[in-house]
């Protein structure tokens, strides 16, 4: 995982990887950002939880409605007031909302 490449995404403030349990493994923070490794460590745990819930919902939705197209899941994003965290697999990027390119970020995580 090339975190520096992730930091080149529009509005990127932080990029990180985490274990299946949600432990923060590697991270890069843009200088001057208000984010801290402690916040990232908490964020990675919520990322694992949100991906698991979204996976369950996608599976359930397809089974109940017969509507395909959700699985396999390609990511989840929480949109905060000033920044969004976009995550897929074991990697995530925090992007500033005003500069965010959600599509490019999801695509980058998909191919990472």
């Amino acid at each position, binding site marked *: 995982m090339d975190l520096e490449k992730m930091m080149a995404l529009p509005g990127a403030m932080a990029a990180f990887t985490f274990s299946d349990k949600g432990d923060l493994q590697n991270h890069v923070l843009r200088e001057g950002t*208000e*984010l801290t490794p402690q916040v990232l460590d*908490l964020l990675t745990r919520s990322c694992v939880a949100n991906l698991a819930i979204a996976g369950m919902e996608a599976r359930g939705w397809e089974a109940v*409605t017969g509507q395909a197209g959700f699985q396999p899941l390609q990511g989840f*994003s*929480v949109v905060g007031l*000033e920044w969004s965290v976009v995550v897929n697999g074991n990697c995530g990027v925090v992007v500033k909302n005003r500069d965010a390119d959600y599509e490019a970020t999801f695509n980058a995580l998909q191919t990472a």
Partner: protein
Amino acid sequence: MHIVKQLMAIPGVIAAGEYAYRGDRFSFEGALTDEFARMASILCRANTLSVNMQSEIFDSFAENCGCRPVQGWIVRGRDITVCAIGNYFSFIENREDLLNDVMTIMRAKVGDIEDDLLVNLYARLGGDTKEALY
């Protein structure tokens, strides 16, 4: 133009709707049945509640870190993406640039979600939940 109608005018938007935070009402346009729209509304409300709870915890670790109040969330599927901003949701196809366009319109039309979202969510459940939350 109402946000749902504006979203539905965009090619690639499958369905869009609005749900009440208390979970008992919804309206929508597009390719969903009434029952599926009801399910989507419940799902959106549950996810919104969950990510708001998470942001409260982030805020207790790092006040004013830029996450709270949560504006919404996105689930990216293989061919379909679900976007939720405030109490609006949309199901869209994974077409080039569509996600960014839909997010820009939803953020602009819904406006910034204020800090009282959780209070509104909980207050409908009964009791003095505001005191317990803050």
